[in-house]
């Protein structure tokens, strides 16, 4: 970061300035003129928080996708199906056991097992044939989508959060000031804050795992050059299995999260697959910080777009992608190789 600052002083200044303005917009009370031009602050704050929470959800899906793609060069286009499968399974398990929390480890394990089967039975059989692997995952996503439609039908499901997470909580952020001088603080659904916190914890955990452990070292080395890693005696197939299982499991629990604060229905699988695709295209493969920033940007642009330019909210995401592709085809954080 210090190197970036010394190399690009102007860019650093612009980024810092933008961040400062952004933070000021969030924390400072808005004057009447500002509310007139920008709309009510509560709407803005809700869009920001909605975007960040959505970004957290996208991060859970996209981080597994980008790790798998970065390490194994497998474009797993069935990743969205794993998300949806996880959500449906989470719904069933939480209905069956009556516990929202139990669903998480259970779904993680089941979907991770599905991922292991996928990696072992499908991807390893056609190692090095990128295109064929991609097509197989397209076929798998079609089949899985139809099987899930068969079993769970076309209606949408919502997973209910436990009582201690339901209802709103008050955040120490000023939403508006009444004429009487009374300060109104922002109220936000507690379950979304919990999701956000959990995503941050998982993200930091993944970063630590990748950057501070031996396994993480192998994975990072594999992303850079897997032939050299295999040649230096690491049993790369086990690492592939582990990363695939982890990525799949993460997509699975993201399904529960998505089912809790949005809903599960056929078609959601492609939505999350697309978010993952865009994150990888824009920020380069195999980068966890890239996945985090990318998911955040997509979530924010989607929610802010929804509030301030409803017609074109989806297009913003793809405009960003097209711009990055036009000027930096390898992704913003990707290396040129």
């Amino acid at each position: 970061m210090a190197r970036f600052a010394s190399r690009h002083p102007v860019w650093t200044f612009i980024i810092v300035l933008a961040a400062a303005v952004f933070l000021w917009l969030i924390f400072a009370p808005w004057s009447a003129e500002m509310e007139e031009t920008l709309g009510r602050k509560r709407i803005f704050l809700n869009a920001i928080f909605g975007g960040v929470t959505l970004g957290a959800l996208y991060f859970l899906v996209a981080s597994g996708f980008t790790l798998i793609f970065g390490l194994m060069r497998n474009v797993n286009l069935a990743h969205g199906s794993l998300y949806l499968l996880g959500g449906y399974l989470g719904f069933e398990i939480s209905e069956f056991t009556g516990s929202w929390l139990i669903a998480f480890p259970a779904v993680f394990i089941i979907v991770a097992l599905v991922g292991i089967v996928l990696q072992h039975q499908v991807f390893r059989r056609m190692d090095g044939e990128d295109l064929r692997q991609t097509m197989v995952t397209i076929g798998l996503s079609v089949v899985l989508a139809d099987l899930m439609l068969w079993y769970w039908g076309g209606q949408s499901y919502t997973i209910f959060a436990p009582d201690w997470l339901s209802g709103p909580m008050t955040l120490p952020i000023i939403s508006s000031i009444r004429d009487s001088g009374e300060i109104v603080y922002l109220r936000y659904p507690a379950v979304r804050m919990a999701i956000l916190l959990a995503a941050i914890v998982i993200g930091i955990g993944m970063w630590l795992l990748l950057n501070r452990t031996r396994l993480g070292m192998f994975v990072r080395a594999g992303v850079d050059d897997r032939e050299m890693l295999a040649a230096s005696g690491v049993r790369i197939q086990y690492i592939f299995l582990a990363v695939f299982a982890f990525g799949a499991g993460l997509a699975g629990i993201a399904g529960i999260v998505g089912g809790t604060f949005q809903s599960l229905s056929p078609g959601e699988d492609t939505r999350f697959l697309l978010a993952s695709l865009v994150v990888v295209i824009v920020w380069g493969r195999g980068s966890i910080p890239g996945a985090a920033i990318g998911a955040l940007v997509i979530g924010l642009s989607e929610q802010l777009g929804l509030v301030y330019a409803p017609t074109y909210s989806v297009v913003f995401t793809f405009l960003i992608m097209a711009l990055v592709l036009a000027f930096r085809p390898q992704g913003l954080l990707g290396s040129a190789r």
Partner: protein
Amino acid sequence: MAVIENPDHASGSDAPTRSWYENIAPGWWVLAVIMLFMPAVANDFILFQVFGWTFILGMIALSLMFLAGYGGMVSLIQMSVAAMAGYMVAIFGFSGISDLSLGMPWWVYLPLAILIATIFGTLVGALAVRTEGIYTIMITLAIASAFFYFTRQNYGIFNGYTGFNLVVPPQLFGVDWRAPMPFYYLTLGCATLAYLAVVYVSRAPFGLVLQGIRDNPRRMAALGYNVVAHRIAAYTFASIIAAVGGILLVWQNAQVAPGTAGIPAVIDILVIAVIGGIGRPIGAFIGAIIYVVLSTFAPDFLFSVGLSAERFNLLIGLGFLAIVFFSPDGVLGLWDRWQERRAKRGDPLTGRSDDGGNPL
């Protein structure tokens, strides 16, 4: 074309003296006669729904086959290009939404639709060729879904969720081109032209350079060819075919909506091209007829084995998986291998293998 030696044609010693129609394998003549006289035996449903749809999907899949088979670029944007052409026909021509349709004459809106769709496809291609291999799939899939969401949310131009209905072909020469027999010949003619164009281009210098780039872009660049320009030009050519297919598709359905280029439709085109065989132009049409026959008659079949008709996607998905797993070059690959095995078996007495001949 005369400059390029074609191995198939030049193999015989008397090749220069043979006229062009003698070089065409007899199978093609049989196929042409069958296709031309099909309306005499087939009913309206077969003509319009089965064959019309086959030729249209075949053309769109053919544009993908051209990019993937000769250019090595698996582009999922072709269906969106087709839908774009369909939208343009609805917008510049006539439709049930008279507020948005401009009502231009057919000789204006048809070229305009193809032109705009081609520009769209070329722009996407220009973005997609900046990367390679699986990235191309990812990028074109992302842009295709952006197109889907954009058309679904834009009411000013694309009329949002409902799209345009009552988009019908113009009454040219006093013929109702949407009647089954004229429509059959219209789609047959367009598909044949598209097929011949692809075959011609693949043997023309441009197509040969493109295949060279597919096999080794660095070497072609070293030989002085502009790799990026050739790839973008390939997208342009493929877009024209897809655009014509898209216009026909809209005329057949009489409507165009965001779902025309939704993700399932985009993936169906890939499925069609891969099932047929991505290596040769005819594969696109073989894949299309398999797909159309399956989707037309699968409900009856599924019903007879006790499943609901909605499981069609499962059937097509499993078929696609089986093809990708066991025969990556599609049904054509299966046929080739069967021919090869038959040729290898040879004469039981002499042990000499005879030439398998030139299949379709």
